[in-house]
């Protein structure tokens, strides 16, 4: 059971999360919802990397006295990489929100069809 969960189910969950994100970006009309869907997709990628670093029975990668051998510690590198990816995601969201503020101020709408209609007038 544990094996099934850690070897298969978790990856299907990640794929589902990624697809939910992609679906939302394509089909949602509201630009803020599109942005939220983009964040969901990024979180799926982040979880994927964290799963790569995970080990059954492993603990945090700080040397504990008396506990030797790499099998007792989880791999810290994916976590370090994902810290960077989270910062990137934060920056992207910030830039996107700034754009949305700007768009809302000019066109008074964040629904995509309404905004495009006012833009082309």
């Amino acid at each position: 059971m544990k094996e099934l969960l850690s070897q298969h189910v978790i990856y299907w969950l990640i794929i589902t999360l990624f697809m939910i994100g992609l679906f939302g970006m394509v089909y949602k009309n509201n630009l803020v919802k599109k942005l939220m869907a983009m964040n969901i997709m990024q979180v799926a990628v982040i979880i994927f990397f964290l799963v790569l670093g995970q080990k059954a029975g492993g603990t945090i990668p700080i040397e504990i006295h008396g506990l030797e051998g790499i099998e007792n510690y989880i791999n810290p590198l994916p976590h370090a990489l994902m810290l960077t990816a989270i910062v990137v995601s934060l920056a992207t969201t910030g830039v996107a929100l700034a754009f949305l503020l700007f768009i809302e101020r000019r066109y008074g709408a964040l629904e995509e069809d309404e905004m495009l209609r006012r833009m082309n007038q």
Partner: protein
Amino acid sequence: MREQLPALIIIAPLLVALIAPLISCVSTKALRVVVIGTLLVSCMSALSVLIRVLSEGTFHYQFGGWAPPWGIEYVLDPLSSGIATLISFISLVVIIYSGPFFNGETKLRSGIIHALYCLLTTGLMGMVLTGDIFNLYVFLEISSLSAYALIASGGYKATVAAFRYLLIGTVGASFYLLGIGYLYAVTGTLNMADLVQKLQPLMDSPVIFTAVAMLVAGMGIKMALFPMHGWLPDSYTYAPPPVTAFISGVMTKVSAYVLFRFFFYIFGAASGPVSAALNIIGWAAAIGIIFGSVMAITQTDFRRMLAYSSIAQIGYIILGLAIGNTFALIGAILHFLNHAVMKSCLFLVAGGVKWKTGEHAIEKYAELSRRMPLTMGAFLIAALSMVGLPPTAGFFSKWYLVLGAMETGMWPYIIVIIISSLLNAVYFFRVIEHVYMKKATPEMKIPEKGGELPVAMLVPIVVLGAGILIIGILNEPIATQILQYALPGGTH
């Protein structure tokens, strides 16, 4: 000092990006001097590194003295240092040109635009020089984020285009990140040279297949490969002209370079999943070439026409990779160089006309040859080069591509190249006709200031226009002295 030059290429613009808004608060003139000086330093160090690499062979620079595969190293081979030189040169030329455009800006805005511009240069050069695939992702995002913000500085419509680009671009970056996640999962390394060793026994596994598919999807979006080009026309049309000139010149091509690096240096082009992927993107590029050219013909806005033509032109580079023999790869890299110079030149001309007359529609270009002879002379050279007439540079890259396709018997690609050259001729001769032959109608607005562009704008245009002719005439030494060593397995 000489050992540290490679770091200077990246770090000089990065540092200036940090302090640019502060300098701008003191004086915008000082800011321009500092930014141009920094990009000049960056360009000169890239050039000196290129010369050194050509004579002494590939050079590895370890950041902070940490040895790979744990530390991050920069790999300076003839290909990466050559392209870094090209990027810093275009960046330098465009920033000189942008002076009159940003004259009217407030101090803060000017500072931020210059800072973003330096960051964009840093990101693109980092992508080219790095030898670490995660570091490449970080630089990809640095360049993308600064590009989104720079595009959005063109006004409200540009902001909408930039928002779309941001969404699509982030999907591309996520795909790339997933791709390197798969590679990391099977090899446990992020260093390119180390990957080459560790991937060899694994090439037939489905994980590599997935990773290749993810990389193609990610980089395909970033380089606007047909059918993932949707973000490009609006972004190029509404962004401020200097920004478009720089982005169109090098940004999409750096993503093509990343794909080249992955396919030909890390995976090896002959292996199963890569040759399948190259075949698919080759056909996508072939359709994209025809599609982009046809769409370019239907446009009435000069910038939009150039944007669609960019979608077609990135196809030539991918076509070269897909054919994959020596001639075709030389053609692809030569086209990388040619297209960067001629498309930047054309967008600079478009920006100059807009600055002078406030018009972008092709039909308003009538009689410009008499009012701006030098600018339009550069335009004529660039347009003929896009069509591919000798002795301009554009002819030779197409020539190498056709030679490569003939060698492997890929006749459909040759037909695509010929048809697209004819279509290019159709839409560029239409503009040339307006510029050189049409009489201006009386109701058309004649600029009071009249005459040529200011020197700061004219010099970059003329330099790039002359560059096209020089590259065309010197194509043989370039191919045999530089490009030959830039091919996989060609280092000495």
